[in-house]
């Protein structure tokens, strides 16, 4: 029961983060929201492991933690080298 309550809170947080990811004016807002949703996905995976009584999900949570960092850094590298990173930015 308490895992379900925490799970509902985490899912509400994911929904709010996705709203920011869809509305975000710049690309960096979307990436920040994506990073936050990634952390919340790790928490949701850990809670799923406890709800279903299968702790194997914790290995997936460890993997998602590492993929979150690698994904963020990789996308940042990609957009740093491209021209259309920030449409509102003034060219210097």
């Amino acid at each position, binding site marked *: 029961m308490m895992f379900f309550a925490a799970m509902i809170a985490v899912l509400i947080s994911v929904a709010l983060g996705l709203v920011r990811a869809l509305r975000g004016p710049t690309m960096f807002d979307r990436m920040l929201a994506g990073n936050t949703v990634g952390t919340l996905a790790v928490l949701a995976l850990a809670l799923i492991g*406890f709800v279903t009584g299968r702790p194997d999900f914790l290995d997936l949570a460890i993997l998602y*933690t590492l993929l979150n960092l690698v994904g963020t850094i990789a996308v940042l590298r990609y957009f740093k080298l491209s021209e259309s990173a920030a449409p509102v930015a003034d060219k210097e």
Partner: protein
Amino acid sequence: MAQFIDILSWMFLMAGGAFCVIGTVGLLRMPDMFTRLHGASVVDTLGMGFIILGLILQAGFTLVGVKLIIIAALVLLTTPVATHALAQAALHAGIRPKLDHDETGGHIAGEDASSNS
């Protein structure tokens, strides 16, 4: 004793869920990208920490508990790196923090603090 640990675990899980919602509401309502980093940090430190702590109390000192500690350590190590890289990339791309005063100390004409919604 088991009842006490259950109650403590329930409190930690509720606090973690509350901090997750608070952090994402901050992510949704803060005025610009650099202040939204604060909301994201609340989720990454307090929300994650309290939920993992509640789960550790449920798991006890087993392999599951050790895996949860590993998850907490990895999140605490990797999210500051991602956040720092994100802020530096945003500054590099020319996004400036939204200030009440401009950088020379004068007040920006036609804009006051109540309009930063």
